[in-house]
């Protein structure tokens, strides 16, 4: 698979899927949770929103290393041929004030029904700064895309 094709596949997947599974934790506990997502055009950041009272927020605060799985399975047997999945690996942090407007607009552009939730003072808008994506297709074929090098530049 060529880089161009990998990026196109990844972008299609991230743009078509409203939800992903966020995995966070530390040495003593692991936690996986379904979250609403939006990715930046250069694919370097994935945005999600969470209440500050949640376990995932607390875990991200203690250990920012996070993984996020996005896939287009339909829960049919045909998924074994057709489903695509990508796991983003990176560091999670609250969106900084300087970027807040832009990231909130991006996020609400994907999920306009979450406006009230996102604007609540108890809600944290989190950004995962993605280092790599594992792209899985054909059931078991895996490629690793490092987004730090040249991805946005060659766009």
């Amino acid at each position, binding site marked *: 698979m060529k880089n161009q094709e990998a990026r196109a596949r990844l972008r299609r997947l991230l743009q078509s899927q409203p939800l992903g599974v966020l995995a966070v934790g530390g040495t003593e506990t692991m936690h996986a949770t379904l979250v609403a997502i939006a990715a930046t055009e250069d694919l370097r950041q994935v945005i999600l929103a969470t209440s500050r009272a949640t376990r995932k927020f607390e875990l991200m605060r203690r250990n920012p290393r996070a993984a996020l799985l996005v896939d287009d399975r339909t829960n049919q047997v045909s998924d074994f041929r057709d489903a695509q999945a990508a796991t983003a690996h990176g560091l999670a942090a609250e969106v900084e004030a300087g970027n807040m407007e832009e990231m909130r607009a991006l996020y609400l552009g994907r999920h306009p029904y979450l406006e009230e939730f996102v604007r609540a003072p108890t809600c944290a808008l989190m950004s995962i700064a993605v280092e790599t994506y594992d792209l899985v297709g054909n059931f078991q074929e895996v490629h690793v895309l*490092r987004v730090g090098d040249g991805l946005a530049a060659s766009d």
Partner: protein
Amino acid sequence: MDWLRPIESLTASDRKVAGGKAVNLGALARAGLTVPRACVLVEAAYREFVDLSGLRGRMLIEFNRKRLQQMRWEEMWDASLRIRHMFASALWPAEAQARVGTALQATFGDAAVAVRSSAPEEDTARASFAGIHASFVNVRGPDSVLEHVKLVWASLFSDGALLYARELGLDVLSSSMAVVVQELVSGDCSGVAFTQSPTREDQAVIEAVHGLNQGLVDGVIAPDRWVLSRATGEVVTHEPATRDRHVVADAAGVVVEPLPDAARTRPPLDAARLSRVWGAAAEIERLFGSAQDVEWTFAGDELFVLQARPITTLKAADIDPDRAWYLSLRRSYENLEWLRARVEDEHLPAMAREADALARQEPSALSDTELDGEVERRRGIYRKWHDVYWEEMIPLAHGVRLFGELYNTAMAPEDPYEFVQLLEGGSLRGLERNDRLLDLADRVGRATASDRGHDETALDPATQGELETLLAELGGTFQATPDTRADWVRLLSRMARRVRQPKVRRRERSRELEQRYLDRFQGQERERARGILDLARASYRLRDDDNLYLGRIEVQVQAAEAEQRRRGRAPADTPKDPEVSEELALTAAGLRPRTPADSAPADASLRARQLLGQPAGPGVARGRARVVRSRDDLFEFEENEVLVCDAVDPNMTFVVPLARAVVERRGGMLIHGAIIAREYGLPCVTGIPDATDQISTGDELTVDGFLGIVTVHTPAS
């Protein structure tokens, strides 16, 4: 829902559920023609079976390894074999087995039946699928019928069907199939009638054999052939066949037997019977309103119509020549035995003689004009043998498939490739050469250990002589030049230091499997089973050796061309058939030259982590990759590296004993690389697209030869 329906109840609107063959038989029965008692297992049974047994998902994963459009014919054959095995080993759901079994028992009891495919697309004017889907004759009892139904279903994925599907752009996974179960009529004379000749619209053709028509349909028994006038039914010509054998039913199927003397001189049809066959065929053509291909048999004085289908409108010119060639690879045992005799007794000795004769003619001794002529002559000789290779040697490889199918049907092994163990351990020329090379390596190792470096002058004359002999056999880019010799001495010294692996001892297991296999058969069947195993062994060996013979001739072409170049008379480019280059990989000793795409700078931001190919040699190993693209890469090969290449050519087999595993782009279980890897007990994965682009020398790999997966580790892991 009632899965088993009598054919008389079918109408044209049932084509989708009952398939073309069943619907046509129903129409014949209703029109008053004599057809054997039959019913159809509707296609819903297929769909439910593949869903309940989990086969649909397993097939999906199978076709996931590689899309049909990307597969080479050998990969289709492998996929087909695996799927056939999946069907054979899948169990009928208990309720369905009881329900259908009871209905079959009530209809046929323990009478012998034929179990035939009846796919919805079959037997239409557009696509006949003739000979692509399976039929079985002389099957007895509900349990055996149900087992054979699974094999008929599996033939939806026969290699021929896959090729056809690819050509027509059909989605094989969404296809389905009904099955006709038809009482077997033990005919004493059978045949086929074409109501319109493929070559003349005003003529019809009738072919007939003594005994069952299975032999005619499979091409095992040559028929008598009559050409008739369509207008009058009068005989235009009669071509008698050499009548020496016929197909008869035996305890569990059919066998070919010598024809009794009395029948040898008598045509299968007399004038009266010929006329009855033509009358029935013409009636069937009127019934369906188009030219028909009718299978029939006489039992006593009764004429039975076994099936009728429209003569497909596909003109010969419309058939993809590649598919026609691929389909010609499916040969009968008898045909393959004939081919084997041709290849072993005639072609290979003739090729060796030809190569020796060419080797004696020294190009440097020729004048310029003579040399030009010699190059052309050598190319002509190469082309001649190349054609023989494609027309007779590659088809002989089907001997392995024939045995594989028989073995899997008889033994129902867990591993669909268990049969390969019975073929291994023979005397492959590449392995014999490797053994000599390893002996030589030990001698070179002792000589160079005396600290005189990797210099050929360290070798005694006998060792040098042996090295020269081996280099001459390898030919091509390995031929003796000062540089090559130094490289060789270096490589051989490295080979001498290798850790001695215990030789893979599989002979005992192979003998045990052989005994178990033969014990499954008795009497005449046992002899046939033994014969097919013997044929398969020859076929396996030749599949590997034949391109070495062709390689020897190509070396002589190259030698003359090299002399032309040396004199500044650049040889004209010989147009190369890409498939030929692919299959034989003879250029540059099988190493794929770098294409512009290969030479593009690697994109560091994307790398393969896990690649999917075909499991072609069982085992798992982890090691450093050595991507071999050139002669120099081969000489850099270190012990315990994983050989990653486009295709293992017979001329590069010598590095395999140093390797820990083998990965290649070219796919297939029975390609050279896979055969050699298994002989050395190495894990092997084949059919990884762009393997040499996706993997780099130095990458740490895990090669899983059980699952066909290659994992590229990150340095930290």
